[in-house]
């Protein structure tokens, strides 16, 4: 993964500084003398959870500044650990608050909980916390697999509601109440977070829908369970989409409009055409195979920094697994290097799983680049994808940038092997998508 730039580092420092200030305010808001107990825990956890919830919204606002400077993968990774952290802190805050109340009022926990819920703004905040807990529960790996992506995604969107429910309580909490400037700063943190979400997750896609009028032009089968969707539109060059990037696509039919799917462009974008290639992973993606011609497409993007601009070394090794070939296919054609300096290693378990093979062969023939297919079981020594094997394929990995896109298992195997061999992390570029 590439190191953070100056702007991104500044942003990260500011976020941490904000977290420290929010937690310190939890101490300031506590009554003197400060003693460690349920009350203090409630103050600290509450402030940290409130701050974390706003940061979580900002991270997932799809702002191009964040996507460009931090990368979609890093943002998703941070979201993956700030999300559970915010939920845990919210629950800790609620439990500690009830315990502190029970202790202060010399009452039992159930009566204390009833008292707390009767306070202004506390019922909605509790509903918000319950929603967050449900979202967190649905995201656990063992539970997640029982949900379709569409249901899980819809449930995830309730985060906005949950965060909104907690806002009034935060502003009226003892750590902020009566401290006018802090209340204004806190309110601005939230209104800016929601403004970012509105700007980039609603206004921008709506604008793109109007400006580009993207519609499905053709759906074509590429392999069993793999389809390419060709879309036509206007002024698509204004999107400034680059090979290797992806969009979040929402196909506006009655069955599919609820879900946005992240798919990479599988052909270099032109002024009026975009193409993606999809593998059926569940009922939702399978439904996309039946999209009629002319369907309007709501596209958010382009996102992702897996582009040729990342390249720093004179040669490139592209590694793809399965349908992970899509961004690699575009980079293979448009990486901007002489063919002899470009190698594509494409791994699939069966010959028929090699997607877009005829296009890859054609590009290789035209440019003089090399494409190596590794087909069959991974136990076969010929399909070894260790750093040692890759080094053997390209001659010398030390003058290569490596671009990687494949299944989580394949990606982690290749990444671990490269890192173990001492390959510099910032010369490995990858994009990981999670459904």
């Amino acid at each position, binding site marked *: 993964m590439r190191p953070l730039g100056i702007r991104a580092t500044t942003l990260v420092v500011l976020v941490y500084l904000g977290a420290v200030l929010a937690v310190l305010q939890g101490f300031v808001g*506590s*009554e003197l003398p400060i003693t460690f107990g349920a*009350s203090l825990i*409630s*103050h600290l956890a509450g402030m940290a959870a409130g701050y974390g919830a706003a940061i979580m919204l900002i991270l997932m606002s799809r702002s191009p500044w964040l996507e460009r400077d931090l990368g979609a993968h890093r943002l998703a990774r941070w979201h993956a650990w700030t999300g559970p952290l915010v939920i845990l802190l919210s629950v800790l805050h609620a439990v500690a*608050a009830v315990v*502190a*109340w029970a*202790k*202060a*009022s010399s009452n039992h926990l159930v009566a204390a909980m009833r*008292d*707390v819920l009767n*306070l*202004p*703004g*506390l019922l909605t905040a509790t509903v918000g916390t319950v929603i967050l807990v449900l979202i967190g529960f649905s995201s656990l790996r063992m539970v997640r697999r029982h949900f379709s992506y569409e249901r899980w995604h819809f449930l995830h969107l309730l985060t906005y509601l949950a965060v909104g429910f907690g806002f009034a309580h935060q*502003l*009226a*909490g*003892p750590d*902020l*109440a*009566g401290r*006018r400037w802090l*209340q*204004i*700063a*806190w*309110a*601005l*943190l*939230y*209104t*800016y977070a*929601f*403004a970012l979400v*509105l*700007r980039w997750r609603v*206004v*921008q896609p709506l*604008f793109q829908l*109007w*400006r580009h*009028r993207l*519609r499905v*032009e053709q759906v074509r089968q590429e392999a069993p369970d793999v389809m390419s969707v060709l879309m*036509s539109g*206007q*002024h698509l060059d*204004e999107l400034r989409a680059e090979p290797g990037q992806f969009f979040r696509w929402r196909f506006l039919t009655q069955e599919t409009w609820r879900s946005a799917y992240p798919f990479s462009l599988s052909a270099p974008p032109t002024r*009026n*055409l975009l193409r993606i290639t999809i593998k059926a992973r569940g009922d939702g993606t399978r439904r996309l195979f039946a999209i009629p011609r*002319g369907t309007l497409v709501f596209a958010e993007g382009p996102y992702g920094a897996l582009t040729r601009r990342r390249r720093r070394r004179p040669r490139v090794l592209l590694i793809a697994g399965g349908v992970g070939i899509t961004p690699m296919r575009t980079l293979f054609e448009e990486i901007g290097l002489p063919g002899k300096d470009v190698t594509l290693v494409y791994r699939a378990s069966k010959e028929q799983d090699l997607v877009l093979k005829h296009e890859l062969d054609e590009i290789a023939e035209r440019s003089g680049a090399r494409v190596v297919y590794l087909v069959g079981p991974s136990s076969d020594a010929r399909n070894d994808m260790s750093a040692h094997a890759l080094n053997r394929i390209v001659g010398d990995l030390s003058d290569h940038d490596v671009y990687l896109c494949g299944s989580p298992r394949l990606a982690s195997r290749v990444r671990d092997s490269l890192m173990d061999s001492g390959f510099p992390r910032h010369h490995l570029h990858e994009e990981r998508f999670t459904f």
Partner: protein
Amino acid sequence: MSDAALDYGRRIPRIARLSVAVSPSLIRWTLRLVTVLLFGAATALGVNVGMNAPEISPTSVVQQDGVATPDL
């Protein structure tokens, strides 16, 4: 593909064709203006909400009523 694109162009309603005439630079500036207005509204809303936020926490109200002093 060009035939299909032309055919597609014919199917675009007249109101949609307006977008063809708008210059990219005008579009960019309009979007910038939208961003500025959106964040201006967010600033006004944030300041307003912050200014009108409660001065006393509900727990303090309870405290004044002498029911409990839990300091939450």
